[in-house]
């Protein structure tokens, strides 16, 4: 099993969710986050004061998937979150040791 974390542009969230539903992903966890990468921040000016805003708002989504879905998930996120401009975000894939559904006690692929 794999654990996929993607940081994307906030306005792309709906498209990504649709794309993931289409390939059979059952659940997503979403968090509003701030951060910076190559896009860097921007400056804000208030009369004489200039502030560099380093951290830009992004959306982080987390998905746990079976090994066979991994490639499809990464591909779906890449396609749907793409604008081609700097700041589109990143996808991180990690191995996932165990999953358990709290209600039924199912584990592994059955719990996904």
């Amino acid at each position, binding site marked *: 099993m794999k654990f996929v974390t993607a940081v994307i542009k906030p306005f792309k969230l709906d498209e990504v969710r649709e794309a993931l539903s289409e390939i059979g992903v059952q659940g997503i966890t979403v968090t509003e986050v701030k951060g910076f990468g190559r896009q860097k921040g921007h400056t*804000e*000016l*208030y*009369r*004489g*004061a200039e*502030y560099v*805003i380093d951290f830009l708002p992004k959306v982080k989504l987390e998905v746990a998937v079976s090994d066979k879905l991994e490639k499809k998930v990464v591909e779906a996120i890449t396609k749907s979150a793409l604008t081609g401009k700097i700041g589109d975000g990143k996808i991180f894939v990690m191995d996932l040791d165990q999953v358990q559904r709290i209600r039924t006690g199912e584990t592994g692929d059955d719990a996904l």
Partner: protein
Amino acid sequence: MKKLFSKLGMVGLLSFLLLGFSQFGMSNEVFDLSNGTMLLAEHHEKVVPVVGVAVEEATLDTGDTAWMIVATILVIVMAIPGLALFYGGLVRAKNMLSVLMQVFVTFSLMSVLWVVYGYSLAFTEGPYNTWIGGLGAAFLGGISGDSISGTIPEYVFVTFQLTFAALTPALIVGGFAERIKFSGMLVFLTLWLTTVYLPICHMVWGGGLISSWGAIDFAGGTVVHINAGVAALVLAIGLGKRLGYGKEVMAPHNMPMTMIGASLLWAGWFGFNVGSELAADSTAGLVMINTQVAAASGVLGWITMEWMARGKPSMLGGASGAISGLVAITPACAVVGPMGAIALGFIASMIAYWACTSLKKSLGYDDSLDVFGIHGVAGIVGAVGLAILMAPQFGGVGYDEGITMVSQLMVQAKSVGFTIIWCGVISFILFKIVDATVGLRVSEEDERAGLDTTSHGETAYHS
């Protein structure tokens, strides 16, 4: 800080020289001025009441009275919630309530002080009439519901002037926002009202020194705005910068509130300026159009500067420009024409922009909400600039007999220089006294945590 005070000293010296120079240039005209029927003297002959005795021929005008009651309420709306929201939006969320409280409570305290002794010292005659009035009307003694001032009940006049005296100290709040100790502030502002506002108010509007020079200050360029601006500057320098100033982000926490506050100030300003005519007459109409176009051109002046210098016109710039234009037209609104008002608002706003960005940066003081940059600087531009723009060729009402543009300019410069020095020196002394006794700055820990919880035990927002 020492360096700053020495720089400030230089500014003081400069205004002193200005004063001396104007006196020198004026030596002949001074006599003409005191004999001539000055616009302002005339204006105030009408309004300065003889305490306790209704002037015989004075009759109450219901139209004037109705307008002055409305004007008074408009000025109250300027302060609360107008000024409170304008300032509140500009601070960080952790200090929102502290600024609202500072404005709210200052406004209340000054209102009470005004009827206890303020009105009397400002608007009655006293043994030291050149500088300050007497105590004959302390606790509003001798005034009754039947007393008439000009064409309005004296109680209405007292209340209208009360709102000015209560608003001016509240303006200073912006200079020391986010680091002032609440109790120290109340003590300082009480002493400040007594030793700075009341004398200057008496000297300008109560028949004292400055009015005898023939200075024109229709609605409070020197009394209100230069006074508040200079006091804010002295306190900002005296208290020192906020912790993390220049390093941490201190961006305004709610610009829409600042916009609402600025708009309430704009609307309320019609009570302030038009109300200062103390009548619903033809001059009131001139003041009204001037107030509106000066505010509007102030907005355009500020955002023009921003657009050119930074590439982006901002909402805060628009709001700041409106206030700058309004401040500048305040002393001038009854003597310039509408085109003059447009020019004055535009130019004053551009100079205030320069003061809030370049001047503030080069001197390095932390005037939290730019009270000096906007009220002080635009106030000076308005008070001095009116002498030029009141000329008939610029659409103004023209000069009184024996007065020229140059002589009026000198008188204006002298009144401005005098106010800066009076206010600057006394504010500094008061700062030292209150800082050494009650204390004026909160602890470092409290400042970090925010004044809402540490000074007032509540928070503005809950998530």
